[in-house]
């Protein structure tokens, strides 16, 4: 009798235990979300494109990028988060020797240029994706997004949302160095 009673009692704790675990998982998940939105390692080819450079008005294609490692960054002047993030990119450019490819997404080129004039221009190329075609082929879910494109024109890494300098050093830099080793 006592044994059964004990068993009945311990059954009572099962839902509490399950709920406790769920809440813990949710709490931890929240923590994760904070540190790291959604890093994605991928190996898709960068889509073909032929777009004007915002500054030089010259046509740039995918072939121009091949042979070098690029950090491609999609942004726009109407995107508040992108503008706040801009300093991080300038910092990256100042500290590391990697090439930056800017993609101005569905934006007025003049507005984009005026921001660069104010805050500095870290980009090798600055593509004008006014029609949003490149963004569409990239499968953009929002701005800003950052891609690492290797010398073969393959996307090796895809970062959603704004980048912090810490994230760059901890997550992206190792990948860049690894690609450089290859």
């Amino acid at each position, binding site marked *: 009798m006592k044994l059964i009673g004990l068993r009945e009692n311990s059954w009572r704790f099962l*839902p509490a235990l399950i709920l406790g675990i*769920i809440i813990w998982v*949710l*709490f*931890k*998940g929240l923590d994760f*979300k904070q540190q790291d939105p*959604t890093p994605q390692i991928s190996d898709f080819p960068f889509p073909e494109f032929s777009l004007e450079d915002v500054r030089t008005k010259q046509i740039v294609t995918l072939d121009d990028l091949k042979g070098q490692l690029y950090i491609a960054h999609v942004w726009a002047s109407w995107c508040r988060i992108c503008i706040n993030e801009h300093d991080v990119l300038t910092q990256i450019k100042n500290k590391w020797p990697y090439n930056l490819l800017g993609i101005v997404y569905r934006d007025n080129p003049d507005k984009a240029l005026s921001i660069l004039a104010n805050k500095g221009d870290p980009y090798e190329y600055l593509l004008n994706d006014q029609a949003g075609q490149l963004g569409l082929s990239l499968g953009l879910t929002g701005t800003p997004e950052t891609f690492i494109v290797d010398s073969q024109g393959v996307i090796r890494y895809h970062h959603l949302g704004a980048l912090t300098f810490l994230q760059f050093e901890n997550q992206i830099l190792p990948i860049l160095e690894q690609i450089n080793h290859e």
Partner: protein
Amino acid sequence: MIPEFGLFALIMALLLSMTTVILPILTRSSISEASQIKINASVVLGQACFILLSFVTLVFCFVQDDFSVRYVAQNANTYLPFMYKLTAIWGAHEGSLLLWSFILALWMVAVLFVAKAIPGKVKMTVLTILSCIQTGLLMIILKTSNPFIRILPFFPQDGADLNPLLQDPAFIMHPPFLYLGYVGFAVPFAFALAECLLKKMDYPWASWARPFALSALGFLTIGITLGSWWAYYELGWGGWWFWDPVENASLMPWIVGVALIHMLWVSAKEDLFRTWRLSLAIFTFILSLMGTFLVRSGILSSVHAFSSSPERGIAILGFLSIVVVISLGLLSHLRGEQKQAFVLSPWSKASTILLGNVLLIAATLSILLGTLYPIISQLIWQKSLSVGPPYFNTVLLPMLFMILILMSVAVHLKWQQAPDFLKVRKYSVSLLLACVTVLMLINLTSLSFVAALAFTLALYLIISTLMFIHKPQKIGMIVAHIGIAIFVMGIVFVSSWQIEKEFAMQLGQTVEVEGFNFTFNQLQEIKGSNFEGTRGTFTIYKDNQLITQLFPEKRFFIAREQAMTETAIHSHLMRDFYVALGEPLDNGAWSVRFYIKPFIRFIWLGGMMVALAAFFAAIRSRCIKEKRVASYEIDRFA
């Protein structure tokens, strides 16, 4: 000045709801119970008035285009049509929580006025518990998501506009109904806690909580159905359910809510399974809160993609934890006198309902696991992955089948005894008939085995339920169960016979799909108050007879810089034609998607039938309807 007025009202509401909680403790000995009940009622009313005031103030800010209020600037625009200015209130986090609180206040007023048969003391306890929830919620709103924060002195000239996905008539109604459901489950939850607190075992707790649980379930069903309909035509993917985390978050309380109303019905008849019933009431509300958390914290990425900050997530999670600890603590302290043992046959109605309950809980836990698995996997294996429809379909389909069988059988069983032998023989005859139907369906139609089985079970359920058509008191059950059967049939037909084609079409070109001729007639520019775009004209012919003309659109929302696909749908009870304009291609052609969806309306028809049945059963409930009889019973209990 006006937004501050709203904030002031919100603070007043918080103070009053705190008063409701503290007053009974302070005045326990000094004031008579009758006057305590009176004070409680008036404070609850006052609190509801202030929340209403605060809600109306926010509406006013939206209508006035007051972009100095941050929430308005983020979610509205001068060119936003008036209807959407009203609905933009629940377009984002702050307003959604205010709506949550407003609806909770409405439910409290409903408890106060509608349930006449409930004794004052019980009502006061229930309202006090609900006030505790309200207090927590208002604190969260004021601390982390105050909708009245201003951007001063330099405020934007124009707002950022409402997310275009949400600019849709179905979306106007979707969140309020969903919240009416979520929040409504707070009432049976409060009744469960009151039962644990007051320890009056002989009160008819189940029949008191039942109308509230039923109407909450009805609202939640409408909310989910509207959401599914909205996803079908607004997201432009042609599906009606995506096992998206946010959808799952609303489905889980629904399933446990279904288990709860059945258990409440059993308990209202016979005092059985008390702990199980109380746990269900508590878990339904906890799942509702968890749903709010999942949607509002942005912890899981989903089509709904609500932006968020972790601070808000932590606030809601903390609230959830407090609710869990208190309610489970109260539940575990419940010690009733042992009821005398009775014999319950495994083939009785009561035990089949219990078995159905267990299946529903198992289904909920599977959905919960699938929904949280991405987080768990990131936590343990540091891998981000998503769990898709294959998992959910594989796991839930067998459970759905078992539940369908139980539903058809259970209604014919006796309360506590096994059925007699004659009936068993009748069942085996119908089982044989069902097997024959499955085999015939597979041979004669293009249905797969699973689809044929599902269809047969649904048919079986309809026939078995219709045997009660002569009993008007069972009308709620009949409509709801047939609704489920129709819903299942809709799924079977859509998944077996739908046609999805994609073409690159030039203007003037005609393509043939399953005997229907689709022609791309025209392409024109359009301009709305807050968007511009392109509209295509398509005609559908069958045997040279015009069936319909469709106008799918591609819209570009100016303020948000966001492109949206407006699908065009010709709907008919028997079949939907669905045309979506894709992207323009290089050679002047457009990519165009044609879907033919047979019987997809059945899915939502089934949902609406369930909702209607729930409301009907709620209105018919004894505690609302038969006031005199019930109060007589209370006298006897007292």
